[in-house]
């Protein structure tokens, strides 16, 4: 019986107008996103090649990851150049996008965005009339007048509808991925492929959360119009409001100095030391050390506050599955806060390694300098306790919303 219900649900869904609209929209957006983000990745790769440090150039530069095509996250930030300078100062190169302020107004249209926002909405639109729609059309009475139990019926409905949602989604992803792979400059290693598979599984779990929310709303309402209104507002709340509100709340609860304030303090440290040296008030041998120590203290203080804000922001925003999904996707892709911490630690280690080398009149480090070497985090490090906790949160959300839908349906008045 379950199989019959599933097949009936799939047939009913794929012949509907909403299936056509949502499939066309999601496929178009996924393919457009792949096209745009692939070109963006290639441009960043080209930029990386141009900026490759020469021998003895004390510059740390990180290669963009092809996984940033799917979840760009902070990759643009991470792949700036970091030049080690006099006194262990780190001169950070500009992001290619920093000159075009229009980028700041809008969100990156990567696959993460398409899944998180648009597929999330699609999942809710697939589910909002699953139960209430059947009730309105009168078919719910007919279905339950047969020898089918409510649990089997709701499970069949859920599975049938969800299969109809994810099959075109997976197909669109496969088409896009195949096209990307044709490009000779984009090489996915086996680790990348494992991560992509993992991201796909987590995306399906994420979409199941939204599908279950839609299902729950559908079994709590008596009219499709009410179900639609509540679904849309819930989607807005979960995808946009909770994460964005959490971010500004964390900003207030864990204050951080502004970037310009921080840079001003760094400038003051080295200028003071150089000036004191010129005036003969400090030991010339200590000048570099003093600058380095001053900067280290400043950065440690900043990082401590920053980590506090990050933890707070993560904890608040995790109330939304969309945030949990974002953290998982960017951390798995190596473009998230986890990788950011790793990159910064590697750069600070590199700075300590070459600190003390001679410098020219412009503060550039001269002489033989070891090259910066960096490896992104391994798949096991990316799947750390935090990522697993976020995956757990998504699974718990699924369980809660599906259970709520199930309980509501058991009590549902089918008349």
């Amino acid at each position, binding site marked *: 019986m379950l199989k019959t219900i599933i097949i009936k649900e799939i047939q009913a869904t794929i012949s509907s*107008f*909403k299936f056509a*609209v*949502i499939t066309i929209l999601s496929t178009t*957006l996924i393919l*457009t996103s792949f096209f*745009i983000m692939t070109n963006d990745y290639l*441009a960043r790769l080209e930029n990386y090649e141009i900026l490759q440090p020469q021998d003895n150039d004390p510059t740390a530069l990180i290669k963009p990851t092809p996984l940033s095509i799917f979840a760009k996250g902070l990759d643009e930030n991470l792949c*700036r150049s*970091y030049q080690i300078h006099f006194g262990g100062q*780190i001169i950070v*190169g*500009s*992001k*290619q*996008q920093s*000159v075009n*302020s*229009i980028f*700041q*107004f*809008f*969100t990156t*249209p990567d696959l993460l965005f398409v899944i998180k926002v*648009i597929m999330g*909405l699609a999942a809710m639109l697939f589910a909002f*009339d699953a139960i209430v729609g059947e009730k309105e059309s009168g078919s719910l009475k007919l279905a339950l007048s047969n020898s089918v139990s409510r649990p089997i019926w709701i499970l069949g409905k859920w599975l049938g509808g969800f299969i109809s949602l994810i099959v075109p989604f997976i197909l669109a992803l496969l088409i896009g991925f195949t096209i990307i792979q044709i490009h000779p400059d984009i090489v996915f290693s086996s680790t990348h492929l494992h991560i992509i598979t993992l991201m796909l599984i987590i995306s399906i779990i994420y979409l199941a959360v939204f599908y279950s929310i839609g299902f729950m709303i559908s079994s709590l309402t008596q009219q499709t*119009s009410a179900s639609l209104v509540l679904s*849309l*507002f819930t989607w807005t709340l979960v995808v946009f*409001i909770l994460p*964005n*509100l*959490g*971010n*500004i709340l964390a*900003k*207030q609860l864990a*204050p951080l*100095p*502004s*970037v*310009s*304030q*921080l840079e*001003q303090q760094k*400038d003051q440290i080295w*200028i003071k030391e*150089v*000036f004191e040296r*010129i005036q003969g008030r400090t030991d010339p041998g200590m000048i570099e050390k003093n600058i380095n120590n001053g900067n280290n203290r400043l*950065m440690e203080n*900043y*990082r401590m506050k920053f980590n506090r804000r*990050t933890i707070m*922001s993560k904890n608040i925003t995790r109330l939304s599955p969309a*945030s949990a999904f974002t953290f998982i996707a960017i951390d798995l892709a190596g473009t998230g806060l986890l990788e950011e911490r790793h990159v*910064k630690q590697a*750069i600070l280690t590199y700075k300590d390694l070459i600190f003390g080398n001679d410098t020219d009149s*412009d503060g550039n480090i001269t002489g033989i300098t070891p090259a910066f070497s960096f490896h992104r985090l391994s798949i096991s490090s990316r799947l750390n306790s935090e990522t697993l906790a976020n995956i757990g949160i998504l699974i718990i959300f699924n369980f809660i919303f599906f259970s709520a839908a199930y309980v509501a349906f058991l009590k549902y008045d089918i008349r």
Partner: protein
Amino acid sequence: MLKTLIMKEIQEQVSSLRFITGLILCVLITCTAVVILTNNYKQEQDNFQQQITSQNHFLNNYAHTNRIGAIITPNRPPAHFHPLVLGLANDTDQQSFDTDPLPTLFPPLDLIFIITIILSLMALLLSHDGVCGEREKGTLKLILSNNVSRGTVLLSKWIGGTTTLFIPFILSVLFATLYLLVHPSVAWSATDIVTLLFLILGAMTFLSIYFLMGLWISAKVKTSSISILTALFIWIIFTLSIPNLSPYLAAQCFKIPSVNRIYKEIRQLRGIERDKLGRKMLAALTARYQSEHSKFWNELEPMSKEAIRQRSSTDPAFNTLYNNFTAQSREVWKEANRIQAEKAAKLKNNLDDKVKVQIWAAKHIACLSPYANFIYLATDICGTGTRGQAAYKDQAAVYLDQFYNYLSNKEEQIRTKDPAYNNNAFIDISDRPQFIYAEEQFTARFNAILPYWGVLIIFNLIFCILAFTAFIKYDIR
């Protein structure tokens, strides 16, 4: 009849679940966001004050001409509208090892976000069944069987629907404004209130587009379920696709060379290469003095600064030659700076030209969507957008010119008293001109938003015509 229809429309909408849910959500979220953003604004103000104090304290103790450029940074205060419209961050151009990446991952929530996402969705929810919903219920036939034209029905739906839509918006803005006006950290002037009024008008124009779009779709299809799906489809294209894709498309069509490489070249031109050129020119000047004034030179070379001061005060001929030499040395460095600055400016201008084209393209591709037009309108009128950023940069450049003129005069005065003064010596600049950022005049901001407003009105007209023509042909059975 129009009035009756409008009243009927308002009464129906106001008692609907979508209106009540939207109203609660909109008012709650706006109030929460404004309270949080106002506190963040207070923090920004404190940070700004700390920065000014720290800069003054530092300059009072360590000011010297040679490295003054790194310290004299004109600081921009947080914009008055930050509790409502965040726009672009003040330190958007600043590259730092430690930057807060969270805003990149989660764009902050402000009034603009509430208007563009929550209220635009609400507009579609209120209007998507305006025509087809009435047909489904059978009331459309009844209405049109009266002595009322289709145009009047549509007009009443638009007036009644948008009036209903504006209730949560106006209420939210009212609560937010009251909170801001009583908050001690927010000092709004009459101009700010006028700015807010224009922001509200702009938002109404923007929301009306989505309402008309919903009406148009509603008059094109037979059922409200198809109508809402189609409306959401277009909403996604307008709000989430075109604007987000536009900067990437522009960047890919109008490529710019590696910004990092160019900045590095500019730094080299104005650093190491300037030093090389300056030293070479100074060596030529020294050689000339060595050959033409060998006696003076041989006396000068081993002298300490103190010895130079004493000799200058007792020997006018030595003093004249020394002053000439130091003046010419300064000219040499000035010339080296000029030559290298010219080369750097050429590189920078070339980059800027390409950047301008890319920004132009990104901005105009995004303008295909009402969402982007409204974002530009809101951020520009509130001084938190690209215009505000450009105004700050212009004022900062003017201030720096003014400051360097002041510094040059100050140095001249010191040199007349102390011939041995050099640019690594402490200089008292406590009487320097201070940078006071003035927001762009309201009229200039207003003129700047007119094109965006014009586009929003055109969108309104297009959807109005589309809705009207679709409704005229609508089969009411």
